[in-house]
């Protein structure tokens, strides 16, 4: 029984210039306690999809046109704002790329961490303080007392990210959505934070949706991966299987364009062209204009995500038909 079951999520933005089809029929599942990765470049819709789940899309111009997202029996996309608010921050938490904007610069760190406990769970100040110190230790910030009275700007990027993780996990959520949590951090700090997330996941038994553009990061921590492009899921598979043998031309092209997979001196494989403009309605497969394996059929009908074998799905006609 999946913890979160998203089916055909569709979110559009109705702007003056036209309708931006940011997310089009995205489906994915998260089992309890597992880490999945949603990989895509900018404009792929991965962030909009996760924000849609928690009702964080600005309502005009954004609108969730379609889809269901079953979490513990509740459809997040259909329940009222009150229910959503009670789930958000308690059962489902989210952390973002820029930890600086998540913290109020005018409040001491300790107060910010204690606030949700005092408000939502009615804890006394002392009880809340104990929990917060315990949480900070859990995320690797020792010396709780001194850090609690510090201000956000006194913390470095890595520390702030840890604080944000502490804030997100303080209510022991079942699901954590991490949107590019390490992109703004140095590589060595990124490694620490990823290690931390993996450890916390084991200790707290929570599920994690890791959203990133970095294929190396998902290779390290995720069990299953969904690859998104132009608002759709192109491929989904277990991590090892995806990297060993990608079953979609986009995934393949993406993997091949990484310098680390390349022999020095040879030109890198590139994906020609640009991602499509999401305002113009796309006929056929969104990747077709840039796909080296595209045929006529690819520009006429839009492929849907179909399972090849249990646990592997692809949205490519030619792969589905066994041609590739």
């Amino acid at each position, binding site marked *: 029984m999946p913890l979160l079951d998203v089916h055909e999520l569709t979110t559009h933005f109705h702007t003056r210039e036209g309708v931006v089809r940011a997310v089009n029929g995205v489906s994915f599942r998260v089992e309890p306690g597992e880490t999945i990765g949603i990989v895509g*470049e*900018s404009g792929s819709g991965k962030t909009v999809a996760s924000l849609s789940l928690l009702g964080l899309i600005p309502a005009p111009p954004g609108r969730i046109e379609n889809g269901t997202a079953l979490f513990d029996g509740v459809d997040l996309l259909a329940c009222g704002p009150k229910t959503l608010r009670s789930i958000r921050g308690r059962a489902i938490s989210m952390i973002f790329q820029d930890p600086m904007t998540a913290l109020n610069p005018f409040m001491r760190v300790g107060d910010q961490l204690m606030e949700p406990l005092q408000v939502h769970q009615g804890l006394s100040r002392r009880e809340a303080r104990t929990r917060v110190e315990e949480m900070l230790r859990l995320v690797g910030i020792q010396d709780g007392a001194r850090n609690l009275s510090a201000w956000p700007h006194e913390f*470095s990027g890595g520390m702030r990210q840890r604080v944000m993780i502490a804030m997100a996990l303080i209510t022991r959520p079942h699901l954590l959505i991490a949107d590019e949590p390490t992109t703004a951090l*140095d590589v060595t700090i990124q490694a620490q934070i990823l290690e931390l997330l993996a450890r916390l996941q084991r200790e707290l038994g929570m599920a994690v949706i890791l959203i990133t553009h970095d294929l*190396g990061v998902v290779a390290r921590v995720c069990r299953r991966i969904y690859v998104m492009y132009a608002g759709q899921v192109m491929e989904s598979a277990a991590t090892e299987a995806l990297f060993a043998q990608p079953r979609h031309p986009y995934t393949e*092209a993406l993997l091949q364009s990484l310098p680390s997979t390349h022999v020095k001196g040879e030109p890198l494989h*590139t994906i020609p062209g640009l991602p499509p403009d999401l305002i113009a309605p796309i006929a056929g497969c969104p990747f077709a204009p840039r796909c080296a394996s595209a045929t006529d059929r690819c520009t006429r009908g839009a492929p849907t995500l179909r399972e090849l074998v249990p646990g592997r799905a692809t949205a490519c006609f030619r792969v589905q038909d066994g041609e590739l």
Partner: protein
Amino acid sequence: MTRPLLELRELRVHFPVYAGLVRRRLLGTVRAVDGVSLDVAPGETVGLVGESGCGESTLARAVVRLVPCTGGTVGFEGREISALREPAFRAIRPRLQLIFQDPYASLNPRMTVFDALAEPLRVHGLADGRDVLRRVSDLMELVGLAPRFMRKYPHEFSGGQRQRIAIARALALEPKLVIADEPVSALDVSVQAQILNLIARLREQMGLTLLFIAHDLSVVHYLSHRIAVMYLGRLVELGPAGEVFHRPRHPYTRALISAIPVPDPVREKTRQRVALHDEPASPLNPPSGCPFHPRCPWAQPRCAETVPPLESCGDGHQAACIRLDQM
């Protein structure tokens, strides 16, 4: 042996930090670049790596004199340029160009592509009249942009295309040395590959010497002949790209390489990691002795005593660690 094109000797860039409104007292000094010596041979590509706050961007800016040098010297084309006065320095600027990290911010939003590319040509007398149009078209084609879009404004292009324009602008003056400050960091993965290929091709075509700054070691390794690793304003390792990448000797380089996520799940799960548990110290208050010792898994008490010099540890390979032979 040919003379290096760029010679940095004990380059220092320190920024004083003041506090107080009425009486400004000196709080301390940010030692962004703290004694860097480096040679770049003509036609060579040197990759400069370090994490944020380690001074690579400051180094780049100091070489092109966007920030003043506090100490040390910069030699270019055999001449010492750090002491030159501005008018004399301006005469050599065309040969020393910089590509910025953010393609969105490095182009004047109110100038068309044509204007942006024509301007340096006209100002430095490299073209005039009808010639300008032809040169601009050539430049655009050189970087893979269709010349018919020259009347468009930067915001009408994508990030990758804007970076191409920025590259074209840098090359308009026919520089000898191009410093690229994280030119692909702000771009999507699939676009990065395009730009890297472009840079590689242009470097061959125009015989450029390149100082390439990036935090992604795999990108640096791909493009560079040699790699220099910086930490808190000092060089800690220097050597041939393949050597530094596959057989790093300095503890920081090792930690850096082991921290880079590799898109290969099998390797990721089984590789040996050098884990660092701390944050880098602030360049306002660097540690005594070796700048890396507080985080170093191999540190010993004597590491805090003196700053280790770069020592040879292989053919053209140097590292600044007193425990080199023991690791």
